[in-house]
């Protein structure tokens, strides 16, 4: 079956030209697709716009889902008869009378121009589309940010030493302005607030960051921290860790711009050397340690011998075999006696603070705090003082029936001198009003004039009396020997053994009594059973570990790293001594 298709076009002279083609097949597809039997090239026409089915009986057009206009009416399909006019987009398809033998003849004609008006409109729509240049925006953003956040903060440094325009009209004004602006913009470089003590530097970055692109040097720190001590003398360091330690800058441990504090708690760093401390510092006397909970050695106490002043015995707890764990202070003291819950005998029946006597009358109950008072600051305990703590009960009265005066404490010679002078005065008839002179002493008649020999004899009597009293003090009555070891005799004079007591038992530890005030004294120092002053009541590491664990937090315990108890800058010399010497003012220690 064939269909006659005539394409009508108008030539330049306005004449219609007809070009005929025969198309075989019972199905004709109209559309802009090139495979269509009737090709209608225009964007307004769908790819397969409509189908014409040709049979012996006649033809029908069908255009689903697109639509066609048949004889002015828009339809989805229609039967076709001669004379029908089909409009598809800009094309008009006319059904013509077919020649003999053919069932259908079509004439295809373009009704108007293809795109003339539409294309202009199309261009306008396109022009209205957003025409913002990404490139221009990018340049703006890139150089804007560089200017504000790179050039501006660096401007004071960049312009340093260069001649600025207009400086001659207003000298210094431009520099000042740029410096102020630059300093303000430089604050945008600040990664975080500086520590509280460094806030004194304000916006002066150069106080610490002295040179561009060079890490903060120790010199900058030592400019203020003049007296900071080194950890260990540099000459004693060897090995990889030792050398690394030497090269460590202050700022590697003390990081600033991290908020309030900048004190490091660098257990891991300590352990780098102290894991095998001899490899970094062969002269080290401490034992290896990495963590308090696991491998901290037992404590070493610094013990003193009163008879060997200047010698400090370092004795490790638990090394009892050496028999050295005693304090040889030359004092006699019985803690058990003094801490008797029933109280101690009170010779004077001293009233308590409220003015009331103890219920038992003449007994006084002592506690630890009766003698051991914390030092100001709360770290150590103040030394026990004869004057303030012992003398209330242990009177040094030398002849209570004569006077309530007491001999001075602390020097045998002063005791002797005091007594000689005291009795001489009595013998010479110049008794003070608070003294009732003893009957055995001869007394001068008031107003009597003594010759040289009389005076010598009187003084001899006084000396003899003083000597008797001294013997009573040092020997017979045992006033001194209650607490002291007394040697010698009346000939060469008595001698009280020197006393020396430890004030700090563990000098390497930063123990603070005040921070442990929630505990009772006897938690750590139980002396209630001790009757010997040589006993030592320092707690062992096991006692500390009841509360303190290592650097790893454990619920219900106190997390404790090295810095909890130990000071890092605890050496004798200034940090990096050579540098330090230049920094310190002349004559400063």
């Amino acid at each position, binding site marked *: 079956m064939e269909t006659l298709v005539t394409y009508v076009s108008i030539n330049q002279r306005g004449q219609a030209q007809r070009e005929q083609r025969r198309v075989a097949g019972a199905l004709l597809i109209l559309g802009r697709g090139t495979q269509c039997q009737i090709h209608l090239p*225009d*964007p*307004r026409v*769908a*790819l397969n716009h409509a189908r014409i089915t040709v049979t012996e009986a006649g033809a029908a057009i069908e255009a689903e889902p697109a639509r066609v206009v048949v004889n002015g009416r*828009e339809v989805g399909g229609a039967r076709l008869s001669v004379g029908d006019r089909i409009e598809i*987009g*800009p094309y008009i398809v006319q059904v013509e009378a077919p020649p003999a033998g053919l069932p259908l003849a079509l004439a295809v004609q373009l009704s108007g121009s293809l*795109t003339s*008006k*539409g*294309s202009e*409109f*199309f261009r*306008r*729509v396109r022009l*209205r*589309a*957003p025409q*913002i240049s*990404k490139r221009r*925006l*990018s*340049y*703006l*953003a*890139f*150089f*804007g*940010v*560089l200017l504000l*956040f*790179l050039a501006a*903060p*660096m401007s004071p440094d960049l312009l340093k030493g260069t001649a600025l325009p207009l400086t001659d009209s207003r000298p210094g004004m431009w520099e000042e302005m740029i410096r102020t602006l630059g300093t303000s913009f430089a*604050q*945008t*470089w*600040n*990664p*975080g607030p500086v520590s509280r003590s460094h806030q004194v530097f304000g916006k002066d*970055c150069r106080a610490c*960051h002295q040179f*561009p*692109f*060079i*890490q*903060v040097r120790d010199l900058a720190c030592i400019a203020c921290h003049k007296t900071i001590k080194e950890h260990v003398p540099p000459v004693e360091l060897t090995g990889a860790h030792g050398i690394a330690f030497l090269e460590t800058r202050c700022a*590697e*441990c003390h*990081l600033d711009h*991290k908020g309030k504090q900048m004190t*490091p*708690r*660098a*257990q*891991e*760093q300590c352990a780098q050397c102290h894991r095998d401390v001899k490899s970094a510092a062969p002269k080290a006397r401490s034992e290896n340690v990495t963590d308090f909970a696991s491998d901290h050695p037992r404590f070493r106490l610094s013990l003193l011998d009163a008879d060997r002043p200047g010698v400090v015995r370092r004795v490790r707890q638990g090394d009892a075999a050496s028999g050295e764990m005693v304090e040889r202070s030359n004092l006699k003291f019985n803690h058990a006696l003094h801490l008797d819950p029933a109280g101690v005998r009170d010779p004077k029946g001293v009233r308590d603070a409220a003015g009331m006597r103890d219920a038992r009358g003449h007994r006084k109950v002592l506690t630890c705090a009766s003698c051991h008072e914390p030092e100001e600051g709360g770290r150590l305990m103040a030394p026990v003082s004869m004057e303030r703590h012992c003398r209330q009960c242990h009177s040094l009265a030398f002849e209570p029936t004569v006077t309530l005066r007491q001999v001075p404490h602390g020097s045998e010679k002063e005791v002797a001198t005091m007594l000689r002078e005291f009795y001489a005065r009595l013998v010479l008839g110049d008794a003070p009003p608070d003294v009732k002179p003893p009957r055995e002493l001869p007394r001068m008649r008031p107003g009597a004039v003594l010759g040289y020999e009389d005076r010598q004899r009187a003084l001899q009597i006084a000396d003899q009396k003083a000597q008797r009293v001294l013997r009573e003090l040092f020997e017979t009555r045992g006033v001194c020997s209650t607490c002291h070891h007394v040697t010698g005799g009346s000939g060469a004079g008595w001698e009280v053994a020197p006393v020396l007591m430890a004030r700090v038992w563990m000098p390497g530890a930063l123990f603070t009594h005040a921070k442990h005030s929630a505990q009772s004294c006897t938690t750590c120092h139980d002396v209630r059973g001790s009757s010997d002053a040589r006993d030592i009541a320092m707690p062992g590491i096991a006692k500390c570990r009841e509360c303190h664990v290592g*650097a790893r937090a454990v619920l219900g315990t106190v997390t404790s*790293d090295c810095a909890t108890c130990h000071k890092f800058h605890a050496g004798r010399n200034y940090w990096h001594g050579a540098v330090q010497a230049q920094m310190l003012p002349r004559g400063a220690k």
Partner: protein
Amino acid sequence: MRQHQSILEYQSGRYLWLSLGLCALAIGAYVWHEPPTVGLSPYGGTWLGYTLGTVGAVLILWLMLLGVRKRRYRSSMGSVQGWTSAHVYLGASLVVIVSLHSAFEFGWNVHTLAYVLMLLVIASGIFGVYAYLHFPELMTKNLSDETLEAVLLKIADLDRKCRTIALDLPDEVNLVVMKASRAKARSAQIGSSLRRQLAGEAVRCPTRDACDALLRLGAKLTGEQAVLNGQLLTAMTRKSLLIDRMRRDLCLRARLRVWLLMHVPLSFALVAALIAHVVSVFYYW
């Protein structure tokens, strides 16, 4: 082989796995790594901080190179599709890597500025991926198998037809049609500003107004004029529908383009902030 493969599925997500691996590595290192100073949170100045920062900076510079690579048509250095896939996944992984580098320390400074710019670039990029995967489909659906040009030509045809019909109708009807037509010619009915195009809606569409007016005026007409007015109304309504489709197409086109207007300038701002960040850190070391 499939005809089309999305950049997200390129090489069965090779770069997705690469990015996830990178992120997992970074997170693992961050958790395992302990800063040298106990009691301080991690920060950008530890060895891990410097490593993460370097990785982040190198990634950012490489991501910027996509703009160069896609213009080098003769380059054989990987396909642009592969580059884009890597660009998307590695770019997204920066959120993890750079956050860990910052150790979540933020403030009013150039460092956080760089971080925020990076997040904005990534956010706009994620919108871009969504747009490229989603909008073309909507655009195809909207125009079915037509082009924007065809729609515009059809609108022009309908406009011509409306004006022809209106010649035989009363002046007030003619005026309504002319008004809609002139407005069309000025393109005022098409979202002309970027904001309007993105919104996809005209506040007052003159063609839709004209439809309403014709409906109202048609009630007064009788006989032949009523029939003509009916035809006019049909044409005007079809035109209105076509205009809606065109407007939607323009809206989708604008949305498809607009994210790049953010993405590209912001990424250049980011590179500038990154330079300032790196210089500032070492300038005041």
